[in-house]
């Protein structure tokens, strides 16, 4: 018994991590919880463009959607409501339209119908869908102020409580 425990304790001691290596994952950009959110620059519906990394310092929700996708339609009012409630606290929502599998006219009609007031970046060539390894619509990434992905929800629709709980976690972190 003592031999087994000594071996275990020795291995635990040997395999300690230096503090610098503890957060190594946060330096790598990959679409997974605990990693840096891959950066992108996209044109916005209605003009202008947006770069994700320029939003550092603010909690960001990136929602990938298409106008023909029923769960995207179902969850969008809840996203809009949460955005309105927390916008003043610094929350940014990017409703990335997967334009490569949708079209801009339908996307614009969708935004009008649902009264969306947050920015709608257009992923025309599907590069963001590839970067974010999109496997199903909708997919939502909750990104903290440091640009680290804190939660990923694949599929939907998300209820308002789910979105609110994830956003509250992001807002709790000190700027």
């Amino acid at each position, binding site marked *: 018994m003592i031999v087994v425990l000594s071996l275990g304790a020795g*291995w635990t001691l040997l395999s300690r991590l230096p503090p610098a290596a503890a957060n190594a994952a946060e330096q790598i950009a990959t679409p997974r919880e605990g990693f840096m959110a891959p950066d992108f620059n996209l044109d916005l519906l209605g003009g202008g463009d947006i770069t994700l990394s320029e939003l550092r310092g603010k909690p960001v929700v990136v929602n990938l959607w298409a106008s023909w996708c029923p769960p995207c339609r179902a969850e969008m009012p809840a996203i809009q409501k949460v955005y309105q409630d927390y916008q003043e606290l610094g929350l940014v929502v990017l409703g990335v339209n997967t334009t490569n599998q949708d079209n801009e006219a339908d996307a614009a009609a969708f935004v009008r119908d649902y009264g969306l007031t947050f920015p709608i970046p257009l992923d025309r060539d599907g590069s963001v869908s590839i970067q974010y390894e999109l496997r199903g619509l909708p997919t939502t990434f909750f990104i903290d102020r440091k640009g680290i992905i804190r939660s990923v929800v694949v599929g939907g629709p998300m209820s308002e*409580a789910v979105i609110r709980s994830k956003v509250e976690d992001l807002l709790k972190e000190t700027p």
Partner: protein
Amino acid sequence: MYPYLRLGPFLLQLPLLLLLVGVWIGSSLAEKEAARLKLPSTLVSNLIIVGLIAGIVGARLAYAARYLQAYLDNPLSLLALNVNTLAGFDGLLIGLVAAILYGWRRKLPLRPTLDALAPGLAAFMVALGVAHLLSGDAFGAPTDLPWSIYLWSEVRHPSQVYEILAAVVIFFIVYKRPLGQAGDGINFLMLVALSSAARIFLEAFRGDSVIWPGGFRAVQVVGLIILSITLYIMRIWARAQEAEEKRHEISEKGIL
């Protein structure tokens, strides 16, 4: 890594499916072992179901309790089919407590019941490893070893494969029951001890460890504590068993 399977409009989460298969195989093995140990297999099966349901419901309620206002405003969200809104550790504790209470109320004997659960739990650990491989969770630390795999933008230890191999070895050991006697609880303790030892060893190759002050990996420290307690209980139970056997021998000699 293959986390999702699209079936028409549905997005099937393969790791979850694997876990369900693990629960099913584990329950079947536990029932079989219960029958072998002359325990009421229906009660053992119910114990697992009670633990599972309480665990899942408890995990959702514990999560909701943290965001009380959001869930009070939208109580139907409690029913959402979303694994992101489960408090895993709380659910595990609640499920365990519910199973213990059920076993106690139904007067299931502790040690034989634990032994009945052992092969099923060992099988579930294999399924858990495969679920990790499919989802890309429990990923390894970066390495340049020849058997490394490319995952999450890095070449890494195939920690999920290590996990599966260790779980398969542990399953066969537990299934063969090399120590103790039927129903003395030693087989269950052996499962816990071997699983803890495997976690202590394999955690060193993980890339997602929670790090405590001093650079210690949390799982290794907790694993060491569990291993110490388990080995200590194993010793006490084995000694008690030996004493019982000696008493039995003496009383038999006395009769002769």
